[in-house]
């Protein structure tokens, strides 16, 4: 099969390309003196807005989780990442989760769990650096999920004022 003949648009001088290369180099040279756009990542980090959706965490109030183990978050999770097991407690909230696990390999950071929670007990944090070396490490239990409420102030404020609650 023969190669299709191409119609040529360029004449001889244009086909030398030297002019093009110099033009391109001049443009990139100009950029050498422009402010840098990149960040040196592990050393410098971006400051996230309160709207940022990092990994979901449980809010810890006075050393205890706010969650009442209603199970709404696990029902609404599109990735079926949450597992909650409820039990009864003496506190006024009456129920608490004995087991609360989020499988971080499944979680897609959609934020539905946060939106549906009636107690503001689960929120999206600013934490995005998730590294595991084993599959088991990726299943976050209460020990890893609980975060004191002081650290989540701006996100809680954001959820309360901006989202449909």
């Amino acid at each position, binding site marked *: 099969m023969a*190669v299709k003949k191409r*119609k040529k648009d*360029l004449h001889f001088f244009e086909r030398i390309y030297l002019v093009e290369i110099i033009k391109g180099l001049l443009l990139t040279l100009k950029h050498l003196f422009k402010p840098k756009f990149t960040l040196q990542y592990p050393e410098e980090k971006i400051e996230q807005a309160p709207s940022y*959706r990092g990994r979901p965490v449980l809010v810890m109030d006075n050393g205890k989780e706010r969650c009442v183990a209603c199970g709404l978050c696990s029902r609404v999770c*599109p990735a079926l990442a949450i597992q909650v097991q409820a039990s009864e407690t003496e506190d006024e909230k009456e129920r608490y989760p004995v087991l609360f696990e989020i499988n971080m390999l499944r979680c897609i*950071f959609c*934020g*539905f769990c946060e939106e549906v929670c009636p107690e503001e007990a689960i929120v999206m944090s600013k934490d995005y650096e998730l590294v595991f070396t084993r599959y088991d490490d990726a299943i976050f239990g209460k020990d890893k999920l609980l975060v004191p409420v002081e650290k989540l102030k701006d996100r809680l404020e954001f959820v309360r004022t901006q989202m449909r609650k």
Partner: protein
Amino acid sequence: MAELKTDHLVLNMGPQHPSTHGVLRLEVVLDGEVVIDVIPHIGYLHRCFEKHCEAMTYPMVIPYTDRMDYLASMYMNFGYVEAVEKLMNIEIPERVKYIRVIMGELQRIASHLVAIGTFGIDIGAFTPFLYCFRDRERILDLFEMTCGARLLYNYMWIGGLSHDLPPMFIPELKSFLKDFRKNIKELNDLLSYNKIFIERTANIGILPADTAINYGCTGPVLRGSGVNWDLRKNDPYSIYDRFDFEVCVGKGEIGTVGDCWNRYMVRVREMEQSCLIIEQAIEQLPEGDVTSAIPKRVKPPVGEIYFRVESPKGELGYHIISDGTVNPFRVKVRAPSFVNLQILPVISKGYLVADIIANLGSLDIVLGEIDR
């Protein structure tokens, strides 16, 4: 002397080939360096989108639509939520409509920037790719500021948006548009009218208009062949009829209408038009509540709907069948990349191996959307 026997060479390009834009395997049949046939093998990224949807409630499908065309997630959301709203007859607030258009057009610019940047990289121009990604990064920053994610937004919900724009959004957007106009000019200098680039792309992979229509191509691929067809104008959805913009078609000022260069140039021009739409939308943006129309329970009546939007890649259609429960009975997607990919064997035959890369880059496919 007897004729020497020659044989065709079958070459596998991919699935890990960097210029197949994802996991696509091309089975290329060669005669020397001339392409006899190209057979795309797809399915490496199949995630059972449609089967998943049957088990999900309507709002829970939205994050899954994000993951189809992950370079244009906002537009994937856009099509889906508008389809469900049509099915349920929800009237959404004016502000929501405008924000959706702004987001959608920003997404179109971001998607085209990736298309242009990677197209350049495919045929050996590395620097424009970096400049494209620099600009795209600013759009992603805007998205991150608004909805908290850089790639998979889950921002548009059925009946509204997850939350309103942050106060800094509009000023930042304006400053971005101002800079971006200059950057398009720079891009044109560096890449579009670069003679080396023209040599690689002009008169390559010519797709005649009638073939494009017969194969069902849409989006920049169809418009690159000179067909004036854009759903934003021809079948206006949402509020696109309120804006004043042009549909860009391949004019063939360089090369032939329908070749790689013209398909590429349609995208560059569309970015300018998107800027125009965004500017008009900012002007007209009304005040209001964006979450007020979100229904407590999404349960559409029995029925079905086909709703199509012009995504950055072409006609994106959602065919949703509802059986009156909270789960959709079926969500069928007409993905533009899937249809556009079919044209690759047609436009590659008779060209050289290296031209396949140019052809594929100019089609701008996303495998997440093809395989779903």
